[in-house]
């Protein structure tokens, strides 16, 4: 059975259609893998019966010759996606009893394409964090150097760790400031954040509405392409959904990078980036050059302001998005003598410290007397950041940067919030500009922890992102499996 874990998504999809094994067999292998890796804490909820039912159904479809792109493939779902009838908590105490009566558009797209649900994956509470240490039910442990107990990154730490640990074949995540790309880099896997609007936000617990995007976390770029094909699509229930056709990303595999211009922004090699990462950055540049790309130095002058802009806008939107968690219509209610007391106790008790911190910041920067100086100012600088990218994309097709300034750090370091925020320094700019970006593993650092490189593309050029990142992937030939992975 453990042999079945070696198939990546693309390989498994072909094999299953050839009937080399059944979906039930594959799903059982993953269920066992989940059990074997449970000390990592990746899963909050495992839906064994549902998974096997879905798998059996897929097997029926396959034997009838009717099979969809993801038929029978077992996937883990970040607990920010509302899944009908399956507990959805956003890793928060306040939703510890919430069973949605509806399915998010993105996950429905996956089920419509035949995928099998394994369960709900842990994340930072309400997707706020970069280390998966704010989850109500406890930390997720990175399967790399598992005995050292390092962070898988966040907020999609459970998703990334699970894919790296082979307790899901692939997983969904959400990315607001880097929450897919950063954990993907920390866990040595691929993580893709599509263009803002590519994937519907309907049914995803909202954190920061102008930034949130769903995306795949997978073993390979090809896997990400296959999964995004299913996840993406216009949804009229989401007013911010982009009515832009996405080509079949499978047509963009192995297309190479000849003649493409890759921009290297001078602002991304700042102090604080680890030596090993800088080395791999240089190596990645030469890989692309060798593959026929033209390397160009570029400047994104407002890069350093991206983090402050993000830490005004995201908390502001979150403070408003989280106002609905009041114990009236759903969630864990703490009784009070008055309505206001009920609100204060419910929310005070139900939200963790990081969430409360961000709600407070958000409330503050929107409040009377501070709105212009903070929120409005941040939206203006955001326009400048977006403009930087627009200017640069007139000259280049893609931008290459490291995904993170450091590799995975130990859990429980008790960093102050601000230091934690600096982890997002390379991923936040693309989020603010709404651009598609991918993180792929290129090697290990001296201590044996994975390093990820990030490629950023023009709006709606996920296809180009697939082709270009595959070149890096091929050159890197990163085939190492985490020591904490299921066997």
């Amino acid at each position: 059975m453990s042999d079945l874990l070696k198939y990546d998504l693309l390989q498994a999809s072909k094999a299953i259609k050839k009937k080399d094994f059944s979906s039930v067999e594959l799903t059982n292998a993953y269920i066992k893998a989940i059990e074997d890796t449970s000390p990592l804490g990746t899963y909050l909820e495992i839906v064994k019966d549902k998974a096997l039912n879905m798998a059996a159904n897929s097997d029926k479809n396959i034997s009838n010759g009717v099979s969809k792109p993801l038929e029978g493939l077992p996937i883990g779902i970040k607990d920010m996606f509302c899944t009908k009838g399956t507990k959805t908590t956003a890793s928060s105490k306040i939703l510890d009893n919430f069973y949605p009566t509806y399915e998010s558009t993105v996950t429905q797209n996956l089920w419509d394409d035949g995928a099998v649900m394994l369960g709900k994956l842990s994340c930072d509470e309400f997707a706020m964090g970069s280390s998966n240490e704010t989850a109500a039910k406890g930390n997720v442990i990175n399967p790399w150097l598992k005995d050292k107990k390092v962070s898988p990154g966040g907020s999609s730490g459970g998703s990334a760790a699970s894919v790296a640990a082979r307790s899901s074949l692939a997983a969904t995540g959400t990315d607001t400031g880097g929450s897919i790309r950063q954990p993907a880099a920390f866990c040595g896997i691929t993580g893709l954040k599509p263009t803002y609007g590519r994937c519907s936000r309907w049914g995803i617990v909202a954190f920061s509405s102008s930034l949130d995007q769903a995306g795949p976390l997978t073993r390979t770029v090809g896997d990400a392409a296959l999964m995004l094909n299913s996840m993406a699509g216009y949804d009229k229930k989401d007013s911010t959904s982009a009515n832009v056709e996405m080509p079949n990303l499978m047509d963009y595999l192995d297309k190479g990078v000849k003649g493409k211009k890759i921009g290297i922004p001078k602002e991304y090699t700042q102090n604080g980036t680890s030596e090993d990462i800088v080395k791999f950055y240089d190596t990645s540049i030469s890989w692309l050059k060798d593959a026929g790309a033209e390397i160009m130095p570029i400047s994104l002058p407002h890069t350093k302001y991206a983090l402050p802009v993000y830490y005004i806008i995201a908390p502001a939107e979150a403070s408003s998005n989280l106002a609905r968690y009041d114990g009236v219509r759903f969630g864990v209610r703490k009784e009070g003598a008055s309505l206001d007391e009920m609100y204060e106790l419910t929310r005070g008790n139900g939200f963790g410290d990081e969430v409360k911190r961000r709600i407070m910041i958000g409330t503050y920067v929107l409040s009377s007397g501070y709105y212009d100086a903070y929120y409005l100012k941040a939206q203006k600088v955001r326009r400048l950041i977006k403009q930087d990218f627009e200017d640069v994309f007139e000259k280049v097709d893609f931008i290459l940067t490291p995904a993170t300034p450091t590799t995975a750090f130990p859990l429980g370091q008790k960093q102050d919030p601000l230091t934690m925020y600096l982890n997002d320094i390379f991923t936040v700019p693309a989020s603010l500009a709404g651009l598609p970006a991918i993180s792929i593993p290129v090697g290990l650092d001296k201590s044996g922890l994975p390093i990820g490189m990030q490629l950023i593309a023009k709006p709606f050029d996920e296809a180009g992102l697939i082709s270009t990142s595959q070149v890096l992937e091929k050159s890197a030939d990163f085939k190492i499996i985490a020591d904490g992975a299921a066997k």
Partner: protein
Amino acid sequence: MNINKELKPGQVQGETGLWEMVIGLEIHAQISSKSKLFSGASATFGADANSNVSLVDAAMPGMLPVINEYCVEQAVKTGLALNAQINNVSVFDRKNYFYADLPQGYQISQFTKPIVGEGEITIDLDNGKQTTIGIERLHLEQDAGKSLHDQHPTKSFIDLNRTGVALMEIVSKPDIRSPNEAGLYVKKIRSILRYVGSCDGNMEEGSLRADCNVSVRKAGEEFGTRCEIKNLNSIRFINQAIQAEAERQVEILEAGGKINQETRLFDTSTSETRSMRSKEDAHDYRYFPDPDLLPLEFEDSWVKSLKETLPELPDVLKKRLVSDFAITPYDAAILVEERDYVEFYEKAAAGKDGKLTANWMISELFGALKKENISFIDSPITPEALGELIMLISDGIISGKIAKDIFAEMMISKKKPAEIVKDKGLEQVSDDKEILKIIEKVLGDNQDKVKDFLSGKDKLFGFFVGQVMKMTQGKANPAIVNKLLKENLK
């Protein structure tokens, strides 16, 4: 409080002198759309609790708003009818606060860039004059749900049916100067809304509500501090609330105090305003553009096409009725209050005496319907029937008095007037010879009274008229009776 008979409307007498009221109104008008502003649930009134509620209205995790095109159209059309500037680009903002009937924890409204800007309307005052009231803006926003606080000693019950229904908030400039003027303003706005068809103006059901901002000042001074009186749902309460609030403020100021800017409610049982019990000094709504919605944008050509679908509005209709039908502006103003009235009137008065028709509609028909508690659309008398009655009067077939009897019969039996005249033999007697015969009989039977009349008792003329009418069952043509009596009482 002394009520000085010489006080002009909107004035309050204080010890130190006369105070003037300054009033601004914020009217909330529910758009009569099928579904809500941002969700596909029904917007109709009166359904079972929480049955017209979608997951979006209930603000479940992950739910998102999608705007209703019809509501946008109605806002633009209403703006055009208010002679206001239409903003081709507008933005939806979140107004953040906590309340049990506000599931999202914010209301989607428009703050800095509303869909409609400045405009103005004209209202007819009771003294025949007109005045202009400025409109500050009109914006779209979500209505809130309903809370029931009096069903249980320690619990409140929440119904979200009304949550998310589309509202147009129409904000006037502080140009209103008396409670009566405020009532006239609301009536005019209501009339315009019903003409446009964007709101049914039903105050009892809550489709139209007003918040009143009231302050007082001495003549010539700057505006004083205002207080807002929320949720007034009848013209009568608007009148009473404004008067009560203005008097309250004058009393405080006369005693040397200051007015606290606050939100108040009107207690209909005590006819006084009282402060709302809120623990916060002032709400900090932290408005910011709703990131789930993009800016609302449309073209001039679209606005133009909507303008072409507007019906003739009250002011224009009024002028036309006066010129086409020779009625007074006063009567025309009453008729144009509702489009239904105008439609009825134009049918009834076509080719007939316009003034007479107007009189009968306003004095007789409206009066009769109100007395019997029948709504206008259910009127037993059709425009054609009324027109026929008018014709019979104009042609002298029946007298005005007989017409009233016929009218009363028409209200009950819905029969046509000509039919009733025929069935009851009510044709007016206009034959000189016939009337003369009767006059001669009356005079002959009352010689003593004739003598009295001729010796100066002029009032007896009415007696003779009465006798002739009695003998003709009221059918004698009064003008002819008068003429012939005068000739024969010599």
